[in-house]
């Protein structure tokens, strides 16, 4: 009895849902927003995204900067800016993410970091009928691309255009002001890891900040975003200071001088460190001009040999 009544209702519901859908199908792609993502895929939505899950701290900042904070229903455990982001549900990691935790947020758009290891997650989300857009966020330029893409898919193209314009002019202004202070450009080494010595090359976001702020990365001849380099080269290039990004676990200069080979580097012997806030400097975001101004001000006080 009960089973028969249930099945009747079931069919009735299905009919109500499916009938209008069948009519809509044909002009859906034309009416909804669509954009091409970092993997070259065309992402099409039936309607502007209302429930967004952001799987990188950079995209979370961009979503908020576009005024879409109230549409964010999920974020990674690394998303700590703006403060309001912490109030959004945490779905775990952004690389090889937890698909089930994401699906439980019932999103209509998931913003993935464009890493190869995120391909399987994209396929599994697609199988669940959840749209994904992949965003490469490795350079300053990527902030603009990401803002436009998120803006298009959320139906706020105007906000995206003005965010990009504001970003460009603030960036140009910060670089102009930094250049105006004049003097010799400080030469900096960016410390990523001690053993082996890992640093950033000119293909990195941090190197872009250094350049805009009027400093030179001593390993700008390395084309990749990061690389293992020899201490001998570092000692020979003799940087003015060692840049270190702070994190939850690192709030003080690393004990490089405790490693004898590192003592061949003068800046290490003399304890010349520049501690930079990892949340501000460590990820491409609309706050880049802020980072540039902050660094330029601190370089101004850096004693240069």
């Amino acid at each position: 009895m009960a089973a028969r009544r249930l099945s009747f209702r079931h069919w009735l519901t299905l009919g109500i849902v499916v009938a209008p859908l069948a009519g809509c199908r044909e002009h859906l792609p034309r009416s909804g927003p669509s954009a091409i993502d970092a993997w070259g895929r065309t992402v099409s939505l039936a309607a502007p995204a209302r429930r967004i899950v952001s799987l990188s701290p950079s995209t979370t900042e961009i979503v908020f900067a576009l005024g879409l904070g109230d549409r964010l229903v999920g974020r990674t455990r690394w998303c700590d800016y703006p403060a309001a982001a912490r109030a959004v549900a945490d779905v775990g990691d952004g690389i090889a993410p937890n698909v089930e935790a994401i699906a439980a947020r019932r999103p209509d758009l998931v913003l993935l970091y464009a890493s190869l290891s995120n391909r399987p997650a994209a396929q599994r989300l697609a199988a669940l009928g959840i749209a994904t857009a992949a965003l490469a966020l490795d350079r300053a330029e990527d902030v603009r691309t990401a803002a436009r893409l998120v803006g298009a898919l959320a139906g706020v193209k105007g906000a995206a255009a003005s965010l990009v314009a504001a970003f460009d002019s603030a960036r140009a202004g910060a670089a102009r002001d930094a250049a105006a202070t004049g003097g010799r450009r400080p030469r900096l080494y960016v410390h990523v890891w001690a053993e082996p010595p890992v640093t950033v090359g000119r293909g990195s976001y941090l190197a872009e900040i250094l350049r805009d702020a009027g400093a030179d990365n001593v390993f700008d001849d390395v084309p990749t975003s990061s690389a293992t380099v020899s201490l001998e080269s570092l000692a020979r290039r003799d940087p003015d200071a060692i840049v270190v990004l702070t994190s939850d676990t690192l709030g003080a200069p690393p004990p490089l001088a405790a490693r004898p080979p590192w003592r061949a580097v003068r800046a290490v012997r003399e304890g010349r460190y520049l501690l930079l806030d990892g949340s501000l400097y460590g990820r491409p975001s609309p706050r880049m001009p802020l980072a540039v101004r902050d660094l330029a001000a601190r370089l101004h006080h850096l004693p240069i040999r």
Partner: protein
Amino acid sequence: MRRLSGPRFAVTLAALLTAAVATGVLVGPSFLSPGEVLGALLGRGDPSATAIVWSLRLPRVALGLLVGGVLAVAGASLQVLVRNPLADPYLLGLSGGAGLGAVLAMAAGLASPWAVPAAAFGGALLAMAAVYRLAAVAGGALDGRVLVLAGVVVGAFAGALVSGILAVTDAQGARSAMLWLMGGFGGAGWGTVAVLAVYAAPALVVLVAEARALNLLALGEEPAQYLGTDVVRTKRRVYLAASLLAAAAVAAAGIIGFVGLVVPHAIRLLRGHDHRGILPAAFVTGGALLVFADAGARTAFAPVELPVGVVTALLGVPVFALLLRRWTARSSS
């Protein structure tokens, strides 16, 4: 292929060693002229060159010689012990244990420069103890086949633990542990050289003292027993000494493959099967190979450094293939 006679072989080895040390000290990512290097060695010249030569290049050369030598001697001994030409110093679960130690130290956030090498050494010793226990349970005689199996089992177990830890801890620290394990001399200082020398010296002495017993062991355990060797005691000593060498090498420079596998075979092809000659020759050749490889790793893509294991394989495989071809051609004709 004609084998090199004793004196000629010794001269060849001395020349190889000299060439390796000279290359290691003269070549680097930053250009120093031979005159500048000499000045720095004598304590004259500008302080930056002196720092580069004394605190970067020389410790790297010394550590390369020691690690390469130690790995080659450990490999040569283990190949006889387990009667398997594929044996290398890491075969008996040591690399797995060292990896587990290193990853645990990184995951625990230990920041001291000595924490990771010490933990890797501890992990390798634990793996060694576990393999020894497993093999001893199967019979007191340390059967070579059982040792190999126990090594594989312990290595797999440690590998599973490493994967588990990597999955649940912060990616950056874990990635760095893997980077460290890939091996290299980027962090070599005199302290590392001294620690390795202290651990390696007694183990090397034990192995050289057992060289004659190794010759007999290579004939088979029964003949060795008839010829007056205390087989069980020899095997135990060789196993412990070779494992200690490999563990100390891992702790000093991470896992550097290939040297311990191929150098002993190359020496046997050139020099015959007397381990009283093989072990010292393997030490010098292994050390020289690693110093050459490290010079390549530092300079090929300067200022970027290659993992030294990549270079040992690129240098060693063609040489070994050539030796093998000449040897098989000779023995089939």
